[in-house]
């Protein structure tokens, strides 16, 4: 396996002499005031990478603390660490992760547009994101909030000291960034498709991003209102959630989860889109059940709004309500099961190449499946009563949100890196990092399932001594995971300067983004492409493929 895919598949067009988007202008101002979606994607990439490591630092501190029951940190410090870990990872990494970077970069390219519909709003989205980032860093540096990322009232409104208001304000402002990005994608996908690009010819990544944008648009305002009311209660004393006045503390939870459950799908749907791009490309065959995949994506997006109260089964909501929401939760698992099945069958009769991106994608499927089946346990009412609020839940959502989504993020990064930067990365070490991620991740989080069923409550800085062995294992795994996450930073950084120049289509993929040079010119295409056929026209028999603009390539 010493040869990389680049040598195996035919080369695309020779690199164009037209200045690409990176070299067209060089000043800092040209970056800070750019309206080019590709540059904004890179700006976002820089921001979220920064926050990923801030959140990762907090995670490291937590795992260090939990290595022994006695702990390392003061309780107050630990509480602030997991709160900031949650807030930063959810709103400042996971939610913008794939949409704001790869979505921003590739949605216009994949549908054959010259840019997003509203480039200025796109840029504003990045500025608003950074503004909210500054506010959250302010909260962090001043001492942090200590409520958990869920801000449950009345703890957050009355009892918690610390910078809860600033943290909630950051989340509120961050919502605007989400909304602007989502709005841009929805309008762009509806109105800016190239001729011939019908809905059923859209690559699944575009479908994934579309589904996400719909969720962002419709869920975020509820969170915005919720955090606004939280701020009003904490800052001004207008206590709409205050039980002293008959306000309902559970109302906060209802509105919070009305956003935050769909938000889980904001994190996972783009990942599903990415994996649906990568697996056919490296299996060299069409995706199995394209129509089923699109239906599954959209039904997950819609159904995600019907399941929020499964976070509240033990919170004292009405029993009938819990039954309704449990049933709905089982329903939302059905399209997810369809997707797992289709990805797996896409490997059937393929001509599979195990490049780094593919390894990440396969890891995604496995971790997502494990996260999914434990999700079924949590959806089962009686079992949820037992494991709710324990490490079982922590393990479950990390399998989905870190195991799956971050794998997809890294998969996308490796898959599109040549296109974004025009450079190839060293394949061998990238494969090593992918496998290391998988091992480190399972070592970190599988023990937490056991801990959860044993009854270890989450958000605790200490625990009874008999649970130390599992915690220690988890902390050890986390250190491996940390290395696996730091490695790409090194070799991708190296490749920026020393990597081989990438061809237009190093992996032999069919999407429109591969028909233009790497890195792409300023407005993506010299001529707006005309789309002739659907995505994924790979032929596993001889390895040939047909690009979406109708160009056939030999195997």
């Amino acid at each position: 396996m010493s040869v990389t895919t680049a040598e195996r598949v035919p080369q695309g067009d020779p690199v164009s002499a037209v200045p690409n988007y990176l070299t067209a202008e060089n000043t800092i101002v040209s970056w800070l005031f750019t309206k080019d979606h590709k540059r904004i994607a890179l700006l976002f990439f820089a921001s979220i990478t920064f926050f990923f490591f801030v959140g990762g630092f907090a995670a490291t501190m937590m795992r260090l603390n939990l290595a022994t029951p006695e702990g390392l940190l003061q309780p107050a410090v630990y509480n602030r660490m997991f709160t900031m870990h949650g807030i930063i990872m959810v709103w400042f990494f996971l939610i913008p992760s794939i949409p704001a970077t790869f979505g921003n970069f590739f949605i216009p390219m994949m549908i054959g547009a010259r840019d997003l519909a509203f480039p200025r709003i796109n840029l504003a989205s990045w500025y608003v994101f950074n503004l909210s980032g500054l506010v959250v860093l302010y909260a962090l540096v001043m001492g942090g909030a200590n409520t958990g990322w869920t801000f449950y009232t009345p703890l957050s409104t009355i009892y918690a000291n610390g910078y809860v208001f600033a943290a909630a304000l950051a989340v509120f402002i961050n919502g605007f960034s989400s909304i602007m990005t989502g709005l841009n994608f929805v309008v762009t996908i509806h109105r800016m498709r190239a001729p011939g690009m019908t809905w059923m010819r859209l690559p699944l990544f575009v479908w994934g991003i579309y589904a996400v944008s719909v969720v962002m648009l419709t869920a975020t305002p509820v969170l915005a209102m919720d955090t606004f009311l939280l701020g009003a209660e904490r800052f001004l004393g207008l206590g709409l959630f205050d039980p002293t006045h008959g306000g309902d503390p559970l109302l906060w939870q209802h509105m919070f989860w009305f956003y935050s459950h769909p938000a889980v799908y904001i994190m996972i749907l783009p990942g599903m889109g990415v994996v649906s791009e990568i697996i056919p490309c490296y299996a060299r065959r069409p995706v199995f059940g394209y129509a089923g995949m699109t239906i599954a994506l959209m039904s997950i997006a819609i159904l995600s709004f019907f399941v929020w109260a499964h976070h509240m089964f033990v919170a004292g909501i009405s029993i009938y309500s819990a039954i309704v929401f449990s049933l709905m939760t089982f329903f939302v698992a059905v399209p997810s099961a369809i997707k797992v099945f289709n990805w797996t069958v896409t490997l059937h009769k393929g001509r599979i190449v195990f490049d780094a991106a593919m390894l990440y994608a396969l890891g995604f499927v496995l971790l997502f499946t494990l996260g999914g089946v434990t999700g079924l346990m949590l959806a089962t009412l009686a079992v949820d009563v037992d494991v709710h609020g324990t490490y079982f839940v922590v393990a479950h959502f990390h399998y989905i949100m870190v195991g799956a989504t971050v794998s997809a993020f890294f998969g996308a990064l490796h898959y599109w890196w040549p296109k974004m930067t025009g450079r190839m990365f060293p394949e061998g070490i990238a494969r090593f990092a992918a496998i290391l991620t998988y091992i480190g991740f399972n070592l970190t989080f599988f023990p937490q399932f056991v801990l959860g069923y044993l009854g270890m409550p989450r958000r605790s800085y200490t625990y009874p001594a008999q649970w130390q062995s599992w915690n220690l294992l988890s902390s050890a795994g986390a250190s491996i995971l940390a290395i696996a996450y730091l490695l790409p930073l090194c070799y991708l950084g190296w490749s920026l300067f020393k990597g081989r120049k990438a061809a237009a289509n190093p992996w032999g993929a069919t999407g429109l983004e591969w028909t233009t040079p790497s890195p792409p010119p300023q407005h993506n295409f010299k001529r707006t492409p005309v789309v002739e056929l659907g995505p994924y026209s790979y032929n596993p028999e001889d390895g040939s493929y047909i690009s979406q603009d109708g160009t056939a390539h030999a195997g």
Partner: protein
Amino acid sequence: MRGSAAVLRPEPQYASLDQQGDVAQVGMWVFLVNETIFFGALIFTYFLYRTFYSHDFDIAAKDAVLWCGSVNFALLVTSSLTMVLAINAAAQGRRRAMIWLLVATVALGCLFLGVKGFEYYLDYQDKVVPVVNYQAKPGEGPAGELFWFFYWVATGLHAIHLTIGIGLVLYMLLWRIRRGEITPAYFAPLEVVGIYWSFVDTVWLFLYPCIYLVGRS
């Protein structure tokens, strides 16, 4: 200056000005999905508490200043009318009419804020400002204060939205129109602002019965 309209060209991602205008309008409607849900979520909290604490709400809401809310209602509906007429004037090339109608829109918006401010003053006198100056009325349970929490949050947010609307119209007047960028050939920016303006009006349509018409019978 009017001549400069001739050089107005679509942004690079669009094929034509028509497409650009159409996409801008669709964009505003997508944004309104957001706004609808944003205010809807607030009204949801109101709906919940009013359903279950209707007695307290009936008593507490009697202090809402009916005439202020009603005058404001009329002002806003009228401003929607002047806005839509201004867009018609823009499309039909009646520049003077457009400018005066927009000025009227801004004036009505400011008048609304003025009345609102005066109403806040009256509220303070009536001791219905929670935390700062609040006194429960005879027979009013603690849930009555929830009504006033809602009142301040809702009217405050609406006022912020209206202020943004006024800012947008002023931007149109003082920048886009003055530079001659709004012409019968391309008036989409004004239409987008108009859609937003009428939406802010719509919010008041719902807030009005929530606040001013409770417990009057």
